[in-house]
Every structure is written in C-alpha cells, then in structure tokens.
C-alpha cells in the first residue's frame, strides 16, 4: 500500500487550501463577531454586544424572517417547476431526453448578472411584460410593482435555482430501475398509483437535495434584491454586505454571518439525515 509520507504529501494541497481559504477566514469571522467598533476602528475587546444587538433590534430578525420566507417560496416554486420537468425528461422524453437535459443546463452557462438584468428588462415599466399586458389591453399604463418587489426577487431566484433543483432530482429519477415501474403496473397499479407509491418515494433523496440547494443558495443571495428587489425586499445578505462595506461595522456583520452559517449548517445536517433515511440502496 501507500507509505505514510506519500499520503501526507498528496493530502497536503487540499488541506492547505481548505485551511487557508476556508477555515482561516471562518476563524477570523468568528473572532470579529466578538469584537467591537470604537471611534471608527475595530477594537479587539471580547464581548457579546453584537449578538445582543442582533436579537434586540427587530430590523435584523425581520429581515432574517423575510429572507427565509423568500427562500421557502423560491424552494417551493423551483420544486413545482423542477419536478415535473425532471420527471418528464427522465421518464417520458424518449429521444428528446438529451436535448431537454442540455436545455436545462444551458442557462447555467449564462452569467448570473446577465440573467438578473434580463429580468429587469422583462419586468420594468418599459419592459416586455408591461408591453404585453398593454398590448392585450389588460392594463392601460405600465404597472410598476412587478419590479422592485419581493415578487421580482422570488421570480428571478426561482428562474436561477430551478436547474439546481432539477439536477439532483433528475439524477435520482434516472436511478430508479425501470423494472420497478413495470413491476408496479404488473401488480395492477395505474400510472398515478405507480407515481405516488414508487416513483415519488424513491426520488425523495433527490427532492431533498434539490430543495436544500434552492433554500440555502437563496438564503445567502444578495444580488437579486440589489438588481430587482428594491428596499422592500432587502435580504439578510444585503445587510451583511453593507455592514462590511459602507457601514463599516465588521463585528456586527460577522455576528450575523455566524448566525446564518449556523443556520445553514444545521439545515444541511438535518437534510442529510433525511436523505439518508429515505435512500434504500
């Protein structure tokens, strides 16, 4: 087998990478969250003030709850769009399977920003959507509330994260042996019974993985609110961004980040347990 020295040498680069670019920044962030800003400077005095502020000032909790509401909406909508798409592609697309799969992947090659700006063009008051509504005489004047609202944020993020929901779902659907579907039909189950009793339960690991992607990625998003959200749809990452930027309160920003990090980690832990619980191979 391999010698100990060899194992050390080949495991060094990834360990260094994780150490320098992941663990070290986290440690710094963690330390900052217990420091404080005094006279425009970060004072290295250990205290819990930042965490106290976080839970006392309702603004932060409100924004956090809004963020979670948006994340939940994005997750639900991406599942509603992604599941039928993945199911159709995997089970019924026939020769168009590869094409459909590629069509879902292609948007991932386009920059996030470009897709964000595209939604601006679509939803804006001079945008495609308003133009269409006026053309079919549903509205007389441009409607402004499409853009710069939580609705726009949910719409844009759903569009962006649906492929992330689709991919694990598609993979888990592809892994279902087709003879299980035949066995179900053979035993007297029609299409809907087969879907509910065989396909859906066996695709749960993919469904949970996809939902986790959508929820966690939305939780940390700050560009969508900036591009299409407006002041009414500020999310928690925007607050962190401003605290590390113009507001120059790194310690408070770090404290919020630590909280989101803990939230995300416990969520990942939970969903991983769930996924394991419902996979049978």
């Amino acid at each position, binding site marked *: 087998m391999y010698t100990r020295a060899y194992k050390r040498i080949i495991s060094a680069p990834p360990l260094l990478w994780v150490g320098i670019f992941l663990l070290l920044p986290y440690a710094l962030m963690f330390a900052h969250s217990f420091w404080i800003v005094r006279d425009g400077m970060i004072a290295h005095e250990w205290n819990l003030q930042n965490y106290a502020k976080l839970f006392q000032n309702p603004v932060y909790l409100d924004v956090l709850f809004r963020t979670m509401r948006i994340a939940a909406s994005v997750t639900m909508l991406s599942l509603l769009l992604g599941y039928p798409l993945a199911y159709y592609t995997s089970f019924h697309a026939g020769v168009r399977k590869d094409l459909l799969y590629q069509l879902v992947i292609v948007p991932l090659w386009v920059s996030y920003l470009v897709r964000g700006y595209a939604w601006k063009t679509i939803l804006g008051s001079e945008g495609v959507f308003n133009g269409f509504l006026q053309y079919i005489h549903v509205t007389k004047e441009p409607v402004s509330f499409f853009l710069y609202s939580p609705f726009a944020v949910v719409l844009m993020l759903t569009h962006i994260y649906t492929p992330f929901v689709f991919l694990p779902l598609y993979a888990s659907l592809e892994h279902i042996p087709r003879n299980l579907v035949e066995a*179900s039909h053979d035993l*007297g189950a029609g299409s809907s019974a087969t879907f509910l009793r065989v396909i859906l339960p066996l695709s749960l690991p993919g469904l949970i993985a996809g939902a986790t992607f959508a929820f966690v990625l939305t939780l940390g998003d700050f560009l969508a609110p900036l591009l299409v959200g407006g002041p009414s749809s500020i999310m928690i990452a925007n607050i962190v961004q401003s605290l590390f930027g113009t507001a120059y309160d790194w310690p408070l920003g770090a404290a919020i980040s630590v909280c989101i990090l803990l939230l995300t980690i416990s969520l990942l832990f939970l969903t991983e347990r769930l996924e394991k619980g419902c996979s049978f191979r």
Partner: protein
Amino acid sequence: MTQPVSIAEHAAASAASGNALLEVRNVAKRFGAREVLKQISLEIASGEFLTLLGESGSGKTTLLRLIAGFEQPSSGEIWMSGERLDALPPYKRRVNTVFQNYALFPHLTVQENVGYGLQVSGVANSEIPSRVNEALQMVKMQEFAASRPAKLSGGQQQRVALARALVNRPKLLLLDEPLSALDANLRKQMQGELKSLQRELGITFLFVTHDQDEAMALSDRIALLKDGGLEQVASPREIYAHPANSYTAEFIGQTNLLRAEVRNGVAACGPLKWSATQPPGAALFSLRPESIHLSPDGPAPTDAVHFRAVVRQQIFSGSSEHLELELAGQSLRARIPARGPLSGEQEFWFSPADAVAVRE
C-alpha cells in the same frame, strides 16, 4: 412411446382442442427495422408449465413482455380466456410477472412488497394481512416479513418476488429467467420448489430460460425459439426423442448429426450404413451419444449397425464415460456406462431406430 399419458400430453391435447388459456396468434414484433419475433402462434393450456427456451436474442423475453403488456405487438393478437389481451394495459391483465432481477420495491418491507398488488387493486384492508401471510407462508418467508429487500439474499429475494406475483392469484404467471442469478445448488432446489408450487396451485406458468437442463427438468412442454421464430413446441421427451430439426437436436441435449445419402432404403454416411425409410437423396440424422454402445454390451438388435472407431478422448463422469470417437475422419460422441480406460480401436454399435431423421 409407451409412456403413460403425462400432464404435458394432456395439456397439449386440451390446448389443441381449443381449451387454451392463452392464445398467441400470428404475433410479430419489430423494433425499428429489426424483427425480433416473426409470426409466432402458440397456445398454452390451463394449468400447463410451458417453457420458452432459446439463446439470448432469440426473442423469448420479448414474447413474455408482450404477454405481460410491457410491449405492444407490431401485428397479431393475444387472447386470454376469450378476452383480447393485447388491447389491455398491463395493470388490467390477470397476468403477473416474476422479474429476472426480482424488481422488489427497495423502499417497502417484504410484507409491503407482497401486499402491494392487493393494495393497488382495492382489496379490503382487513383481508390484506392474511393474504400476505398466506403468500409468505407458501414461499417460507414469514419470518422476514418486516425486513427490507436489501437485507435479503438472492434466493430469499427470489421467494419474495414469487410471493408478490402470486398474491393476486393470476391466471397466468410469467417467469423471466427467475433462477439465472442463483448459484447452482440453490437453483436446483428452487427448481424443485417452483415445480411443486405450480402443481399445488394449478396456476399456468410461462417460464423463460436459456438453460436447456432447466427447461427439461421443469416443463410440461418446451417452446424452442431461434431468431424470433418457433423451432418446435413439444414435451421434453418428445423434443428429445424426435427433434424437428438439427438446431433443436443440438440445442436440447447433445447429439451427433450424421449427413447421409439415402438410396434404396439404405442410408449411408461414410462407412456407416443402415436401413432407412426416407425418400432417396441427402438426409440428416440425429444420433444421441447414449445410443452408441460398446460391443458386446447390451442386447444389440438384429439390424444393429456395427462399426469400429478409434477412441480419441475419454472423460470419466462417475456413472458414465464420455467418449470422443473417430471413424473415417468423422468424429462421434458416445456416452457409455462407466467401465475403465479404453484405448485404440474398439467396436461399437447403434440401432437404426435411434438414428432420427431431422430437417436442416
């Protein structure tokens, strides 16, 4: 033959008299340009154990899938008890399948797997546990009722698959190479159990295999398929004693194919000559290895053909010796009762009655 009338012949007779459970009428199946089944017509009698035997690619599994409803025939019809089967979706056919790799639902326990068919077909909830239990008892798997399939061995999964397919009380059970994944010993044991289960339940079995020994051991009748066509449908004894053609003769058991020239009621193949009733011209005869005897063994009939041949190879297999003989540049296989090493030239004989004329 002087055999008593077997179930097979009884079944075959009732199939012929229109008492068939399943009728396959001129069924053909094409996948694109490839013709997988060519004009198959086959009748299966109620209570019969019929085996579809053939090499891989012979179309046997496709025929099974057409009957189960997983594929649609390109032409032809399938009828079961006076009902057109091929127009029905699989879930409306009173046919159940034991799949090659068992296809047990991995997320359900053994009893949930077995109860699946009852649940989806709306059997009263109060009735399900007792019927599941009954089915599990039949295959001796009650103690595993709460296990998941992943925890079971291949043989155990096989039994569960069987119970699951039988719980709906199908008229016809389709078995797609159900034993091919088991090791030799378990396979022999399962063969016996399958056979007695079929007798007990009286359910018609349509069994697919590529293993001719298995087909011989289990079947009332064998339907031999080659390249999507039926070569011969007959009982194991009949198909062995009177193979319809050279392919059948070689596929079912071992044989020597003798290319002979018939003239004036005498067939000649090299130095071998025997009386034959075939019309003059070229003819092909099948002579089984066990029909060749070492002189002076056995009571040779008066018309026996005696010949001398060189023993090229001898393989001892317990009760018998497998010999490879050579005479006049032709090699022959013989199987004789065990009797110490042989060498050089020996005298052998066979009875002309055992040289069965076959088509090419």
